[in-house]
């Protein structure tokens, strides 16, 4: 056997893509900064970040949050959101809101250009809005439309750097929503080139330029040397310090973490639970719990057995959810007992975090009351000859990681002791997004998350079916009119206390009726080599930010 050799770390000088000379030249040209400042900047310049990510999105634009992480690198938004929830300037330097909360007037940063040279002015943003809310399937941005499609009346450009948005009715979360990745502004010139370009080589104005997408392998992002539109949340204005990012897709946990260990990656996403202890001692680890809804079991309230609230409450109490989450994630991801909102969401109601503690006796009583008194030979409860079966659909390997699947298996085992037959049904990623096998009668429970910054997510999760179209995002099929009224009222209430009260009442209703059972939030974890500094995770949906990152020399 060959003895294990100490980690062979590549010396900084050998790293490909490092150009100290170029860095110096750039510093010279910039020349505007004070001499000392320039020297500090120059210290930080250079290098390419090799970043190992977990999942590859189907497109680099909009859609799933996995695309949003990349979009955060190449696109800018109108406004940004700080970790504590304030809305601060980004492409808009300032803005005014009319007294009736219906007219928003933004003043835009001057001299901003997209990567293709197109000017980023008010007219360009108007084009973006028109496309987002379009009926044309090639243009529409379904995420954006879900949030503001029914709210925005008109978007106009009264001046080259003045943007006016008129709403049909007041919508308090409007600015928060605009800070989310799927409202990232793209070049109208590039947008006109059609859906393939938009999917594979989107053109924004952000600190990095999408150079190539090698499917199945990586996305190559190149530094934008003319970057001048950093958000107020950034740690420095101006272009990124590094020359680029190789955004690798390393789906396999062993490979991904192994590549960090062996120095083949400078940073990785999502440390496998078993490797946490070691990772913390050897690497810089930053974590952010994403807002919105946590991964929670959405119980199908529209069909038996979960049309009976007693059965839902029983199911919520059959397992040691908190312990299961702690075991599966080795305590590194918190338990999110309130399934209505992620615990990092400002409106999250802590009182509900410990609802439905493990209590098999109570569960047994509830099931007896609900008439599930028979027992099949294998111990599963029955009623009128029908087994107490729960088909649990999940996007294994994509929305739910392997650590998350473990939680489901523990739950399955413990639920059996009370008489539930939980059948786990993994759905491949593409099928999941295509909604295949997820029809209203295909499942009894569905675990999923949906990222957002705050309680505006409730509008997406609980909108009732409209015009015969099933709202698939309301997998609980839970749609009492009172809930929707509360959410709509909250969304148009500008008094913070009054709004919060309504959001809290909505959470009480959702959790009280056990329409969802909370498990764990999506937590973004970035582990990086000690020499890679200032990688941070941004609000609103925990996107890793590499604009400020640099290699220590």
């Amino acid at each position, binding site marked *: 056997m060959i003895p294990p*050799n100490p980690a062979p770390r590549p010396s900084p000088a050998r790293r490909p893509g490092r150009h100290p000379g170029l860095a110096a030249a750039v510093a010279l040209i910039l020349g505007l900064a004070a001499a000392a400042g320039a020297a500090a900047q120059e210290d930080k310049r250079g290098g390419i970040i090799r970043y190992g990510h977990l999942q590859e999105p*189907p497109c680099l634009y909009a859609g*799933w949050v996995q695309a949003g992480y990349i979009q955060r690198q190449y696109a800018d938004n109108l406004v940004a959101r700080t970790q504590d929830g304030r809305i601060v300037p980004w492409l808009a330097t300032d803005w005014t809101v009319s007294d009736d909360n219906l007219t928003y007037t933004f003043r835009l940063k001057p001299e901003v250009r997209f990567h293709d040279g197109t000017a980023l002015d008010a007219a360009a943003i108007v084009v973006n809005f028109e496309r987002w809310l379009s009926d044309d399937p090639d243009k529409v941005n379904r995420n954006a439309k879900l949030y503001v499609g029914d709210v925005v009346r008109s978007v106009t450009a009264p001046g080259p750097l003045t943007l006016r948005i008129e709403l049909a009715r007041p919508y308090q979360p409007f600015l928060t929503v605009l800070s989310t990745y799927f409202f990232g502004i793209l070049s109208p010139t590039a947008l006109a080139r059609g859906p393939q370009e938009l*999917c594979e080589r989107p053109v924004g104005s952000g600190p990095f330029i999408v150079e190539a997408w090698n499917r*199945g392998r990586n996305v190559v992002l190149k530094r934008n040397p003319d970057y001048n539109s950093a958000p107020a949340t950034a740690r420095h204005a101006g272009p990124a310090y590094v020359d680029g990012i190789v955004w690798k897709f390393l789906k396999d946990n062993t490979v991904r973490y192994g590549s960090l260990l062996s120095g083949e990656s400078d940073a990785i996403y999502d440390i496998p639970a078993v490797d946490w202890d070691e990772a913390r001692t050897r690497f810089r680890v930053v974590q952010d719990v994403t807002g919105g809804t946590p991964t929670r079991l959405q119980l199908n309230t529209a069909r038996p057995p979960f049309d009976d609230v007693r059965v839902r409450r029983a199911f919520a109490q059959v397992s040691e959810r908190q312990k299961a989450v702690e075991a599966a994630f080795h305590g590194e991801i918190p338990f999110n007992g309130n399934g209505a909102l992620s615990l990092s969401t400002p409106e999250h109601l802590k009182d509900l975090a410990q609802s439905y503690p493990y209590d098999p006796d109570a569960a047994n009583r509830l099931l007896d009351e609900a008439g599930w008194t028979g027992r099949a030979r294998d111990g599963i409860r029955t009623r009128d000859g029908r087994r107490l079966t729960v088909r649990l659909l999940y996007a294994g390997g994509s929305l739910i990681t392997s650590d998350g699947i473990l939680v489901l298996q523990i739950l399955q085992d413990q639920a059996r002791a009370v008489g539930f037959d939980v059948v786990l049904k993994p759905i491949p990623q*593409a099928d999941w*997004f295509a909604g295949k096998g997820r029809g209203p009668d295909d499942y009894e429970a569905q675990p999923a998350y949906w990222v957002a910054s705050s309680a505006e997510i409730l509008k997406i999760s609980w909108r009732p079916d409209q015009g015969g179209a099933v709202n*698939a995002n309301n997998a609980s099929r839970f749609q009492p009119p009172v809930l929707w009224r509360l959410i709509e009222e909250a969304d148009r209430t500008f008094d913070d206390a009054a709004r919060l009260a309504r959001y809290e009442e909505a959470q009480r209703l959702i959790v009280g009726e056990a329409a969802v059972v909370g498990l764990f939030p999506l937590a973004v974890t970035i582990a990086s080599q000690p020499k890679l500094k200032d990688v941070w995770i941004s609000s609103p949906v925990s996107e890793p930010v590499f604009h400020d990152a640099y290699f220590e020399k």
Partner: protein
Amino acid sequence: MSAAPSRSRVTGWHRRIARLVLGAAAVFWAVATFTFCVQTLLPGDRAELILNVKAGTFTQPTAAELAQINARYGFDAPLAVQYGRFLGGLVRGDLGTSYQTQGPVRAIIAEQAAPTLLTLSALALAWAIALLLTVPSAGRDGSLARLVSGFQVAAAVAPPYWIGTILLVVLGVKLRLLRVESGTGPAGLVMPAFALAIPLSGFIGQVIREEFARVLDQPFVTSARMRGMSDLAVRVRLVLRHAVLPGVTLSGWALGALFSGAAIIETVFARPGIGGLLVMATSARDVPLVTGIILAAAGLYILANLLVDLAYPIIDPRLRAR
């Protein structure tokens, strides 16, 4: 054997090639047709899938949106018309546009061509291992020969992905001898190629071994030995040529099987490749992409077997008479 081939033999040879090529083309057409039919007849609405996959969210599209997609992709035309268009494109070498990426299928597949080298390098490596172990040991009865033979039997049943995972952890993560991420460079091929090659070498080795032992008993071998030819020379120069034949047949088939095996190995080593693409495309019902990949794989297989068929008479002159 006469020095100048007779005229009838030349035409026979030509006819044989023509027959083989025509047969290969027919098989190719059948594969294309079957792939097309299976996919268009699967349950589920293609337009709805395209919309949802594109959006990355699951919402119910409106009838107007569906109609637009149906018109764009020609799903509203009768199936026969769709099939005609498909065949027409195939003849022109146009495999269509991927539903998911909106890119031309031919380019997507071409992009993955380099990683597909894995299949070929695994095959070459398997042959190398098999020959190295078999040639010196076949036909002997010593304990070393038995050990080698036993290893080959065991190797043939070892799951490639299992070998791959263990190689990855031991050589990559623990010992740091090889890169963990295999990337696209030749160095990255080492572990995946070995993982695929070890079981295959077991198969090839067993096949050659049996044939080798049989040929070793032939009179012409004995007479060569009596002429004073060394054992090694007998084995390498005389016997090997005859013994590899069944191995060559096996290789033609193995190429097809390796394609499926490579898809799994790619996953283990987080390599890009045509197999992973196929998995993704099938579940997304990306008909043009799936069809393109199947045709590429089938084409490769058909071509390889055509070459094997043509190579037979070259390797073994006795077959030329047939």
